[in-house]
C-alpha cells in the first residue's frame, strides 16, 4: 500500500492540473482567511483591535472552509479520473484486491488533506501572530481550546474530502462525489429553517454540529466523545456503502 500511495503522490507531481489545484487550494484558503479577518468590522461590526486573540485565530481559520471545498473537488476528480479514464484497468491489474485499492485512494486523500490543512494552519498561525503583535492584542495561550480549534479545522477538511472520495467511488463520477460532500456540508443550513425541535433532532445526526464541537471552547469531554462517534459513524457508513458498490462493478 505504501508503494501505491507513493505512486499517487508521483501522479500529482507529474500532472500540472493537480499541482495547480493544490496551489489554488492553499492560496484561496489564505486569501479567504485574511479577507474574513479584515472585513470583520463589516460582517460583525467589531474593530479588529476589539477581538480577543482566540477570536482572531477563529476568524482566520474560516479560510479552512475554502480548503475543505477545494479538497472536496480535488478528491472527487482524483478518484474518478482513475476510474473513468480507463486507467482503472492498469490500476486494478496492479492491485486486483479492490479493498486495497479503495483504502489506498482514501489513505492518499487523507494524507494529502492532513498535509495541506496542517500547512495552512501553520501559515494562519504565523499570520495571526503577526497581526496580534502589531496590534498589541496580548499573548496567545496554547491551551486545550486552542488545540481543539486546530484539531477541529484539520478534521473538517479531512472529513469532507473523505466523504467526497467515497461519494465519487459510489457514483463513479466527479459531480456525484462533489454533490454528495457538499450536500452533507450545506444541508444543515436548510435544516435550520425547520421548527426548532425538528431541526435540533436532524442536526444532531449531521456532522456539522460535531465538527463545531471542537471549535466550541465550552465543549465537555462527553460532547467530544459524542462528536467523534458521529463523525466516525458517518465515515464508516459512507465508506462501507461506497466500497460495496465499487466492489461489485465490472470494468
Amino acid at each position, binding site marked *: 500500500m505504501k508503494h501505491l500511495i507513493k505512486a499517487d503522490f508521483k501522479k500529482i507531481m507529474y500532472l500540472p492540473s493537480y499541482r495547480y489545484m493544490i496551489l489554488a487550494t492553499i492560496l484561496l484558503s489564505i486569501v479567504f482567511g485574511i479577507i474574513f479577518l479584515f472585513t470583520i468590522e463589516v460582517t460583525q461590526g467589531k474593530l479588529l483591535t476589539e477581538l480577543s486573540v482566540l477570536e482572531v485565530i477563529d476568524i482566520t481559520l474560516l479560510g479552512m472552509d475554502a480548503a475543505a471545498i477545494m479538497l472536496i473537488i480535488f478528491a472527487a476528480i482524483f478518484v474518478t479520473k482513475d476510474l473513468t*479514464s480507463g486507467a482503472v484497468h492498469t490500476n486494478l*491489474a496492479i*492491485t*486486483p484486491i479492490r479493498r486495497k485499492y479503495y483504502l489506498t485512494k482514501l489513505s492518499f486523500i487523507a494524507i494529502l488533506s492532513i498535509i495541506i490543512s496542517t500547512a495552512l494552519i501553520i501559515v494562519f498561525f504565523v499570520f495571526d501572530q503577526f497581526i496580534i503583535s502589531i496590534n498589541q492584542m496580548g499573548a496567545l495561550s496554547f491551551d486545550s481550546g486552542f488545540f481543539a480549534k486546530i484539531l477541529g479545522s484539520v478534521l473538517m477538511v479531512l472529513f469532507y474530502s473523505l466523504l467526497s472520495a467515497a461519494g465519487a467511488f459510489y457514483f463513479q463520477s466527479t459531480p456525484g462525489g462533489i454533490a454528495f460532500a457538499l450536500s452533507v456540508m450545506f444541508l444543515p443550513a436548510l435544516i435550520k429553517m425547520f421548527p426548532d425541535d425538528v431541526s435540533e433532532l436532524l442536526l444532531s445526526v449531521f456532522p456539522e454540529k460535531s465538527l463545531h464541537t471542537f471549535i466550541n471552547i465550552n465543549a465537555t469531554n462527553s460532547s467530544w466523545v459524542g462528536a467523534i462517534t458521529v463523525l466516525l459513524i458517518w465515515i464508516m457508513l459512507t465508506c462501507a456503502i461506497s466500497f460495496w458498490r465499487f466492489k461489485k462493478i*465490472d470494468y
Partner: protein
Amino acid sequence: MLITIILQKRVMQLIKLVNLTKKYGSKTAVDHLDLVLTPGAVTGFLGPNGSGKSTTMKMIISLVRPTLGEVVVDGKAYRDFPEPIKRIGTLIDPSALDKNLTAKQHLSIIATAANINPQQVEEMLRVTGLENAQNKKVKSYSLGMKQRLGIATALLGNPDTVILDEPFNGMDVDGIKWLRGLFKQLAKSGKSVLVSSHLMSEIQAVADRVVIIGQGKLLAHMTMDELKRRSLSSFIYVEANNLEKIKRVLLEKQAIVQHRKAGLEVRNLDAKEIGELALENQIVLHELTKVTPSLEDVFTEITDGKADYISKEVNMDETLN
C-alpha cells in the same frame, strides 16, 4: 536486451479457466468456458465481435467478476498474488491511461506502484521503440504508439504470461513486424502469450495455437496445424480432360466431390490417390492442387452462425436514396 531480461525467468505458468461464465442480465457473454492456456506458446484468441474475448481476458485479471466458475493461475486466483503484475502483464485498452502524462511518467508511476526497478522503465521504452517519444504527452500519440506503450506496460513487470487484446490495431508495418518478433521471443523464453486480434493473417503468422470462441462458448482449441487438418475447408482441386469420368471414379472411392470453377473440389482423398486413380483410368489431369485454407477461411467455417453481429450486403445507392 529484452531477450536477456526475459530469459532470466523460465517459469512455465499454467492458467486454467474452469467453467468460466459471465452473464450481464439475460445476456451470456461467456458461457461455461473450460480452457488451459498452454505455457510457452503464443495462443491466438479469436472470435466474432461480442463473442466474449475481452470479457474473458478481463476475468483472468479480476477486472470482471465471473458469474460462475473461476480462473486459476498456478493454483491461485490472480488477485491472491502479492505482486500480480509480475505474473500476468496485460494490455486491454491502449487508450486506458491519463493522456496528460508522458510515456516515461506513465511507466514510472506504474513501476512505483508495483515496486518495480525504475531501470526497467528505461528498458521498456527502448524495447518498444518509444525512447524518442518518451517525454511527449500521450495525448499526442498515434494509436500505434499507444499500443507500444500498452505493451511496455504489460511487459514492465517481466511477467510469465502476457495477455494482449487487439495489439495489432493501429500498428504500422514496422510495428507489426516488431510485434511478431516480440511474440516469438517471449514464447521462446517460456512465457505464455494470449493475443486476440481481428487480423487473421497476423494470428496465422504468430500463433502456435488458436482458441476460437463464439457466443461465449469454446468452439476450437488446438494447434494451427490441427486446425487446418480438421477443417472442412482443406481440399484437392482437380482439373482434367474428362471431368465427368474422373468425378465418377472419385465418387466410387468414397470421395466427396463438388464442382468448383472449371474443375472439382475433392475431399477424403489425397493428391497422390487422385493422381494414381487418374492414371489407372487414363484421364489426363490439367491441375492437381492441394488447397490449404487460410485462418480466415477456417475461422469463418467454425464461427458460422455463432456471431451476434452480422452485416448484410446492401445496395448503398438504394439505401442512400
